[in-house]
């Protein structure tokens, strides 16, 4: 199986195709609903003034996200006696909620991959081609299993968003994913949606 380590080059991204299983390695950052909204409003569209430690976190994120991966994940985290964080359960959350934001975030930070579940829409797929980046699908619900791939928690930003919504900086080893949206316009989700719609139309036309 192909192994991909952050930071990821554009060449590596362009070689990845829908259906390809990949083992991810290296440092990445979790981010979901609150994080995406905050990044867009504060740094991309600048409709909100930075406050608190926003600008320091922004500087850190510019480095962390450049060439790296955003993981749509709200983990269950334990803190041990030494004060070190550890991920106990860390599966993907549904990605489509970030559809309004994702492509703009990826472009702004030059981020090369998103990990999530359920796939994303047309705007994100266009972003995949432009930036370029790919969408990696992890197995939804497989939280204890995936947590084993998280070998170290390096830190956390924006804890005021709450544990699930904070931006956790993690190091992963052999995190299993499948490419379901690539930088050539391919989307497994678009294919399944279209084929299932055809079957549905046939089923609806059948008499009871």
């Amino acid at each position, binding site marked *: 199986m192909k192994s991909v380590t952050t930071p990821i080059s554009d060449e590596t991204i362009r070689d990845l195709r829908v259906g390809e299983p990949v083992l991810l390695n290296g440092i990445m950052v979790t981010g979901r609903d609150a994080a995406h909204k905050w990044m867009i409003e504060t740094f991309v569209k600048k409709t909100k003034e930075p406050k608190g430690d926003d600008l320091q976190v922004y500087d850190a994120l510019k480095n962390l996200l450049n060439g790296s991966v955003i993981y749509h994940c709200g983990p269950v985290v334990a803190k041990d006696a030494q004060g070190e964080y550890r991920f106990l359960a860390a599966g993907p959350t*549904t990605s489509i909620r970030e559809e309004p934001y994702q492509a703009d975030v990826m472009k702004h930070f030059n981020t090369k991959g998103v990990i999530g579940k359920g796939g994303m829409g047309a705007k994100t797929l266009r972003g995949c081609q432009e930036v370029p980046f790919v969408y990696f699908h992890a197995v939804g619900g497989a939280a204890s299993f995936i947590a084993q791939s998280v070998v170290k928690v390096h830190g956390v930003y924006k804890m005021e968003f709450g544990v699930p919504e904070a931006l956790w900086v993690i190091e992963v080893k052999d995190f299993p994913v499948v490419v379901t949206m690539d930088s050539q316009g391919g989307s*497994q989700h678009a294919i399944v949606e279209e084929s299932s719609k055809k079957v549905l139309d046939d089923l609806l036309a059948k008499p009871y």
Partner: protein
Amino acid sequence: MQPNLTDKILELIRRTSSSLPKDIEDRLRAAVEKEEPGSAARGAMETIVKNIELSREKSTPICQDTGTPIFYVHYPEGWSTRRLREQIRAAMAESTAKSYMRPNAVDAIYDQNSGNNLGGDDFPTIHFEEVDADQPLVIELMLKGGGCENVGRQYSLPANDLGAGRDLAGVRKVVLDAVQKAQGQGCAPGVLGVAIGGDRGTSYAKSKEVLFDKVGTRNENPELAALEERLTEEANQLGIGPMGFGGKTTVIDTKITGLHRLPASYFVTVSYMCWAYRRRKMTVTGDDVTYD
């Protein structure tokens, strides 16, 4: 004097979050072999089975989204529901401190996570039902994740865009539509809870209540039982498959229930339960507590 059951309820929460019921696990294991070897769908099912084993062994949450906690408490006449509520809430906060549960209660107005899974009077959700004094106390718990909750749907029939009228033929159409619209986003393969009738609120509640039954149990009305089986079979023809990767198993089972409606209303509500179908029960008879 009614006992303090906080620790026993804590154990119920731990088991529910980390260990799937056998009826669900058996169905998931059977679904592995149905997918093509080497396919993404097969890989997803294999990972799901590994995750079930690992979570049970390590006592860690099956899914990081530990969901909406929904309790149904069947209490013998004479028990204090106020005390039971306090004990359930104490156990919920303790289970969060122990990382059996993720802090999951977010104030929708102020955007603040309470940090302990307690929020207002409605989080966790607790339903009380009185039984005779000589009956045991039974507490049922379901943890329903947000991904699958988000793909639930309610239809007001007739739904002309789907050609769905106010009868079981119409029910069939809207349920299949709900599955197609959900794609893999509810963490397929899932289980469907369908309520026909009621008002918008009772219909949603009932569509979840029916999910407390084991998979494979059929409605006693033969026509509804047949529709349950037909819907599962037809939903799988959609080919959405595990995680929406495309594949054989999209829906594991379907459960339908009915409730009275107003002459003007005909709601059909579909609650989608993800494969991480966390549902457990504890029974208290005197000093004896059992879990299943």
